[in-house]
């Protein structure tokens, strides 16, 4: 009784963060011990780190291109969902429903494998089509992957953009209309500059998620020259029978990558909310 009370008092003096740090250290020590016992080849991991990390360039390329495409599609999708035009509303509804309703990996294969077949069939049936038509639908694995990631994430992010646009009060729309602005002017000058405070933080999260999902592109059989980190890990892991080591290196790289961008992300979020308080909150 007395002893446990003394322990509790001593414990109370250690800050919470300090205790959490201890927990992390214990977990990492346990994992290191397990690595040593399981006989993982740390030397090999160190040797191959450079080659696998070289794929970060392509991982980032895929994620950045994918998020750019996704942002464009999400903006168009959101404007469509908020439109009173039946064509715009219908098209964006179909788009979001399909790309949210099917697995990302299936979409990747559809774009990579199914499109070339469509091209060949069409070219056979309609000889009048311009030459090279079927080749145009044959995409490089990385390009197909970027398209699928962009289309898929864009469909989910449509909701983010829609919420952001709707977060801007109706009075802003009326004030812009009263000045005689067109729809386009109103969006560009008044609504979107205010909506972005709501849109940017979750878009950052989507970007981080996409960096991880870029690993799926490796299933399309990317050539070694432009392989991202997961593909590189598979290549060297298989060659040297060091699959576990290679995968651990990759996992570690993804982890560091997301940790770095999560830090960026929370800083950005803090800065944006500061701006929000300054310009929109009460006195």
């Amino acid at each position, binding site marked *: 009784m007395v002893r446990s009370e003394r322990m509790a008092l001593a414990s109370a003096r250690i800050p919470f963060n300090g205790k959490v740090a201890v927990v992390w250290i214990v977990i990492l020590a346990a994992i290191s011990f397990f690595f040593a016992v399981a006989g993982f080849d740390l030397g090999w991991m160190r040797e191959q780190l450079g080659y696998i990390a070289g794929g970060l360039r392509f991982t980032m390329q895929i994620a950045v291109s994918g998020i750019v495409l996704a942002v464009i599609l999400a903006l168009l999708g959101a404007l469509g969902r908020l439109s009173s035009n039946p064509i715009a509303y219908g098209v964006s509804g179909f788009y979001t429903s399909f790309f949210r309703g099917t697995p990302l990996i299936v979409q990747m294969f559809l774009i990579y494998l199914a499109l070339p077949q469509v091209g060949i069939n069409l070219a056979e049936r309609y000889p009048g089509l311009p030459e090279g038509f079927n080749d145009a639908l044959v995409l490089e694995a990385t390009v197909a992957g970027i398209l699928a990631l962009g289309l898929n994430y864009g469909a989910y992010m449509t909701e983010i953009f829609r919420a952001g646009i709707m977060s801007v*009060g109706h*009075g*802003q729309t*009326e*004030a812009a*209309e*009263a*000045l*005689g*602005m*067109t729809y386009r*002017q109103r969006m560009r*000058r*008044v609504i979107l*500059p*205010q909506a972005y405070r709501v849109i940017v933080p979750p878009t950052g999260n989507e970007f981080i998620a996409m960096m991880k999902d870029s690993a799926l592109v490796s299933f399309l059989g990317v050539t070694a020259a432009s392989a991202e980190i997961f593909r590189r890990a598979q290549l060297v892991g298989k060659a040297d029978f060091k699959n576990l080591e290679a995968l651990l290196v990759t996992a570690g790289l993804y982890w560091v990558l997301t940790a770095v961008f999560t830090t960026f992300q929370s800083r950005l979020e803090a800065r944006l909310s500061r701006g929000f308080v*300054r*310009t*929109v*909150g009460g*006195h």
Partner: protein
Amino acid sequence: MDRSEVVVKVRDLHKRFGELEVLKGIDMDVHRGEVVVIFGRSGSGKSTLLRCVNFLEDPTRGTIEVAGMALGGGHRTRRKREQIRSLRLHVGMVFQQFNLFPHMTALENVIEGPLTVKGSDPDQARGRGMELLARVGLATKADEYPIRLSGGQQQRVAIARALAMEPDVMLFDEPTSALDPELTGEVLAVMKSLATELHMTMMVVTHEMGFAREVGDHLAFFHEGLILEQGTPEQVFGNTRFQETKTFLEAVL
């Protein structure tokens, strides 16, 4: 200035929101340089009239004519939207809730319309914008964001923003209702100066009967979607004909 010129002509204006008929046939002429004050109980349709004049609401029936251009309600085709937009260029609007653009400074708010809608020269627009801010007494606040301004200051920026488009008529939709009592004076003073110095044509929905008496040329009392009583301030205040008007005036004075 030709005081006989009619700037805003409202004919047989009806507005229905579902089952509720808010306006039941309004006819009104607003002459150049005239200040029309519209008053009445809430729900009597006075704000709806203003919102119909610049087509923030579509009339159910009847027409609005501004600066010689007549428009009715109905489906918004591309052509109709263009017509509404060119009509709005003749109409300035000041809202109860100010509706300043929070991501722009006071000056940026004022020059946004000229720059984006009219394609004015930026230097000229800035110069003119500063003049307008000076006119509403806020030259020193040009670079402040709306959040740093008091309600009265925000509303004065909103007035400058509407003036910057050089409208033929200014609509004021309860411009002081959202303000603390001690801030209404500065806004009303600016509005009065527009009337007396610029001879601005104005339609003002307000409960400020002192302003109506002092600045108004023509007063219209709205009751259940119709103009029940109208005339000069002397006629309406001095020789009130309807019991409803009397009751209302007693309540607000």
